[in-house]
């Protein structure tokens, strides 16, 4: 039988030797509550914009169908089967020339917390399956973080580098990774995958769009499920739904 008293002593001695993080990080940011309110407001505003956009788009399409006039959108977005089963939303970025279909329970999450420290970054949109409350619980106290299982669509100035260069230098430069070719919306693309922790992997897709680089990325725990039963297949289907003008 294990000598439990000794074990308790060993546990205390050894676990007490584990390093602590800097004391400044012990308590979540003092302004979390206030920022949460601001974020909630931003989420609500983004949702309103999205809903209004969807209504306007639906009205455009309906009017066009009735009158026979050409729909102004250059994007053709074909909903995936899973989308048709569960309802879906369409996000369009006319400024950056893409559209993407997200499942009905997904939404746009404000990502301004991540800042724009990368000078090549022109735009970033975050999509999440988490409810606002779940998202706040996950990220609300550390606003500089990204959330696994969320999808990020970024537009960068590609600075003359090809998609293959981006795929091999973004995360692969410092980590072992797998790079392969694929197509997105009938455009050649590269996909790179690399481990960011022992249990999490980053997957990133790179597509050249003129002088810009479109990057779709997500972090997942392979073999596990994300929020509300999301799987890697869900994310792959969203990525595959992208339409480029």
């Amino acid at each position, binding site marked *: *039988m*294990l000598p*439990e008293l000794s*074990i*308790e002593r*060993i*546990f*205390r001695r*050894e*676990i*007490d*030797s*584990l*390093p*602590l*993080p800097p004391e400044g*990080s*012990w*308590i*979540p940011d003092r302004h*979390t509550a206030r920022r949460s309110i601001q974020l909630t407001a931003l989420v609500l505003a983004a949702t309103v914009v999205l809903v209004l956009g969807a209504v306007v788009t639906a009205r455009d399409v309906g009017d066009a169908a009735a009158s026979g006039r050409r729909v102004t959108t250059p994007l053709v977005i074909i909903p995936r089967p899973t989308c048709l089963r569960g309802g879906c939303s369409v996000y369009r970025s006319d400024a950056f020339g893409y559209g993407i279909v997200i499942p009905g329970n997904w939404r746009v999450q404000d990502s301004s917390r*991540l800042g724009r420290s990368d000078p090549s970054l022109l735009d970033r949109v975050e999509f999440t399956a*988490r409810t606002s409350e*779940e998202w706040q*619980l*996950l*990220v*609300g*106290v*550390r606003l*500089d*973080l*990204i*959330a*696994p*299982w969320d999808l990020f669509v970024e537009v960068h100035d590609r600075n003359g580098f090809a998609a293959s260069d981006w795929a091999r230098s*973004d*995360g692969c*430069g*410092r*980590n072992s990774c797998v790079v392969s070719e694929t197509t997105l919306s009938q455009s050649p693309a590269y996909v790179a995958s*690399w481990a*960011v*922790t*022992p*249990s*999490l992997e*980053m997957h990133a897709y790179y597509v050249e769009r003129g002088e810009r680089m479109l990057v779709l990325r997500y*972090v997942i*725990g392979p073999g*596990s*499920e*994300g*929020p*509300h039963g999301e799987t890697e297949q869900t994310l792959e289907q969203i990525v595959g739904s992208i339409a480029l003008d």
Partner: protein
Amino acid sequence: MVVITAERWAELYRVEFPRVYRALLAVLRDPDRALDALHDAFVAGLRRPPAHDADLAGWLFIVAVRSARRGFRLPSLPLDLLSVKSGNDEIEALLDRMEVGRLLAGLSERQRAMVVAQFYLGLDHREIARHFGVKTGTVSATLAQAKARMRAEVRNAS
């Protein structure tokens, strides 16, 4: 019932932080997850503080463990860490060098949580059962399995 104010809560949390954080590190083996989970427990306490401040370490520990184990509570990562190895490898290596770390490594996360709650935080079976929301018998069985595994690990090592 004693009402815990936000200031008092922060004060109590600070006192318990080192012990609870280290306990979480031993269970989760990931400093980011441990810190995130403990932050969640702090926020949970701000929203709905425990009824009293006795056994606060146990309360924080269990709330944090639950938070870390929830499906949608996968760890989140700083963007600038996404392309570099974090300090997790160092913690893993440190834990693997430790006798306790090696013993815990062979257990499931749930077993680790209960073992650490008992041997490090000093909770008894009844308290662990209450915090985890399971029967005392379940705690006893889980701990018995964990101890058997640790014994086997000790035997294999010697």
